[in-house]
């Protein structure tokens, strides 16, 4: 017996060691989340919905499950009566990619897309009774992709043409997330006019930020679809989607490459990047760190499956009916009233 004990202990130790390795992968994050927000209402802002759905499509395709994607869309474009092709949102006039897809799940929609809900979502200060699909249940091992699109200006982003979030509020919300250990790293992506102004005030660590235009510049849309009569997508997101469409789960592409998807000659605006808060070199960060999903899978060999014991003979005593059940007539008896 005494001889066996050390061996057993050694075995346990190695098991514990491998367990630790498994729980803390080398790049440091254990799960991926995405918060994708379209802040614009009204039909002429079709392109913003197409923007956010492009990113939604990509992160879903690269492995982030719907339960870990919070999608906020301020207006209904797919089933809008003005849409000649119901239940679709396309990324270009040739209808190459239906970014809306057949199994989309929108978590916040219409009037629910407000600054308050957005900040509450990020900071986790939601009212009681909020369903899980409307919560950002991140932890200190979460890599979070935050994508915003809409109409912005120097230092603010408009929500639904009625309110706005300032860059300072945005920065404070992220700081609160950091203090509450709600993220490991954040990739902040924004496609709006003067986008760079939104991340200028950030002061929390581990944030890589990219914006479609510098302060003083407008972000431009890509092209018009004459069948819907409005611009269909914005330039920066169009080229980002084009890049992401060629990425699969086993890709070797890096965030560094992603930051260069839209050079000035195609984007017309200058894509701004802020990397001083981010400790790693983006050229060594796989793109799947933010756009894909970590699915810790342990391959176990030599497993004997225990058959499910079905105890057919075990029966409950016959429940005696204690109550009298009946259907109620669906309408009140008028004769009893008169």
């Amino acid at each position, binding site marked *: 017996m005494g001889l066996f004990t050390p061996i057993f202990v050694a075995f346990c130790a190695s098991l514990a060691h491998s367990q630790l390795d498994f729980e803390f992968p080398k790049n440091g994050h254990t799960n991926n989340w995405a918060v994708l927000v379209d802040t614009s*209402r*009204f039909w002429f802002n079709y392109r913003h919905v197409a923007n956010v759905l492009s990113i939604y499509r990509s992160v879903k395709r690269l492995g982030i499950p719907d339960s870990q994607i919070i999608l906020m869309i301020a207006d*209904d474009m*797919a*089933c809008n009566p003005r849409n000649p*092709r*119901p*239940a*679709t949102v396309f990324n270009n006039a040739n209808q190459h990619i*239906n970014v*809306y*897809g*057949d*199994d*989309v*799940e*929108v*978590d916040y*929609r*219409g*009037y*629910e897309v407000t600054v308050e809900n957005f900040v509450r979502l990020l900071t986790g200060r939601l009212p*009681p*009774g*909020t*369903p*899980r*699909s*409307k919560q950002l249940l991140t932890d200190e091992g979460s890599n979070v992709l935050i994508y915003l699109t809409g109409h912005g200006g120097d230092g603010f982003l408009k929500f*639904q*043409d*009625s309110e706005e979030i300032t860059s300072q509020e945005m920065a404070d919300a992220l700081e609160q997330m950091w203090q509450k250990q709600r993220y490991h790293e954040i990739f902040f992506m924004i496609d709006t006019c003067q986008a760079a102004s939104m991340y200028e005030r950030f002061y929390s660590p581990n944030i890589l930020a990219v914006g479609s235009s510098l302060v003083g510049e407008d972000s431009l849309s890509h092209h018009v679809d004459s069948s819907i009569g409005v611009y269909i997508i914005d330039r920066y997101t169009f080229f980002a989607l084009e890049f992401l469409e060629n990425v699969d789960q086993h890709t070797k592409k890096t965030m560094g490459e992603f930051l260069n998807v839209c050079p000035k000659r195609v984007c017309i605006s200058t894509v701004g990047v802020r990397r001083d808060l981010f400790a790693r070199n983006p050229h060594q960060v796989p793109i799947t760190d933010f756009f894909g999903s970590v699915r810790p899978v342990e391959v176990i060999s030599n497993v004997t499956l225990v058959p*499910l014991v*079905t*105890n057919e003979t*075990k*029966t*409950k005593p*016959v*429940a005696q*009916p204690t*109550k*009298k*059940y*009946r*259907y*109620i*007539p*669906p*309408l*009140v008896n*008028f004769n009893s*009233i*008169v």
Partner: protein
Amino acid sequence: MFLPTLLVLIFSPFGVLTSKPDKFTEELFIKPLYSDQLYVHFHFATKWDTNPEQETFRHTHIFPRALGEIVERYNVQELHVSLTGGLWRYETWGYPILDAAPGAEVWAWFKDTTEDVDQNWKLLASSLSGLLCASLNFIDKANSIRPEYTFKPKGVFSGSNLNSSFVRYSSLPREIVCTENLTPWKKLLPCESKSGLASLLNSGYIHNTRYHSVAIHMRPVCRDSSCEFVSLELQQTVSLVYDYLILGTKNWSFRKLFGQGLMGRCPLAETSTIYIDTTSNTSVPFQLTPSPDDYVTSIRGGHVNTFAKYVVRPYAMSLNANFLGKESVLLNAPPSLHANQYITGYGQERGGIVTKIYNNHWSHLDVVVLQNIPWYVPIYLHTLKIEVNGLEAEPLKIRYIPGRQRERPYHLELLLKLPARSVTSVSVDFDYVFLKWQEYPPDANHGFYIGSAIISANLPLARNFTGLPQDGSTIADSFNASRSGYLVQVRTENMVITLPTPDFSMPYNVICLACTVVALAFGPLHNITTKRLVLTVKDNEKLIVKIKNKIVKVLTDRRGGEEKQSVQ
């Protein structure tokens, strides 16, 4: 998945061991409507032999656990949710299998052990919003009512008398319905959309219809005819009305309607059946290929209907209907009861709501009219006017609960006796009110919605009626189901009113204007009141003399200053 068989083994009263406690059936019902439309109704029913009062929903087999958990948590006895795009046209289409108002509609009965019904109702709606990706979380006390007569429990009831404080009803008429609602709905089905009839539900096709409605109905039902035990029933339905104009042809097929054929049945379904109403075949003949497995004749409430029946087998199939050329013009007698609703008045001060109810039946009909009017549309009960064929009439009973601003909507329920072949109009006046600045939605100029009125009646005849009997859960149960009355709950149109909407740039304008006025008024006033007018001698000195004087003055000043310093 295998656990329910372990846990729930209940003997039926006859001592036969029921091995499967739950049963799932899928049905597709297709009916050509009179006015160039095609009614397509998917009906998925799950019946679970468990006692809903004791069920914890820890282990479920076919019943969706996600829904079960919500039902258990909030003490729900009965739940009805529908999300609808478009309006069901009763006058030309007849009656649907399940009535639904445009937008979102939720009503629920809570168990009589519930302590705070309002709180549970709010949390239930919030959870459902997560389950169905709809904005149902906007449902709260301020837009919910407790209908006394309209929404009796559809399922079984064990208590002695009903207490309407356990029922809640609310509607969100503005709610849109799109793929994002269908996706989670499909995930509640045992086969999801991977196989079976649900695989036909392709969003691109089903949202290209005149009317589409997605619904969930959960209630306790009798397990058998003796009704000593209770089962839990879940009906999940999708109703669609295709327009031949949008389809481009009258000859429909699965490929035209859904974009694909059927790839077999859901393996978990007990039965998988397609019924096609061929009653109209005598006047507008069409041929079905392949030919049906069977024909079912149903005599119900004095009306004979024939249905072509297809049993879905575990292999691929498609279905085509070809209309044969010779077409006779159909005269559709409008159904016994239908209704309209509209707004009257002009200007932005006072308006009125009129509900017109048409009784085309040869004898009188007893109806209940329910109006749920938002708090920002204050109605006046003294203006309530009921006119039958132009003559004023009295209701049998009025239940009216006045609304309270930001707390409770106006709830009006009327019991009316409609004379034979009559048009009854119920009208009530309201005021347009101002909201608080922050209460206006971002698109306030779009208008504010008032939900449908609901007119409930037990029709004596089953003409144009397709609904299920109260004790039935499948479409097959509605065949030959003659009853003393056929319940219809007609939903009217939603209404949009334009509340007086302020100009939201007004504060900015006011600030600009006010500042200008202040600047213009304050400047001269300040000058007049603070400056003293002093007479000065007009000097005609030359420039050189001026400079000289200045230098002298500076020099003398400095000297004086030094003197002062030395003094200190």
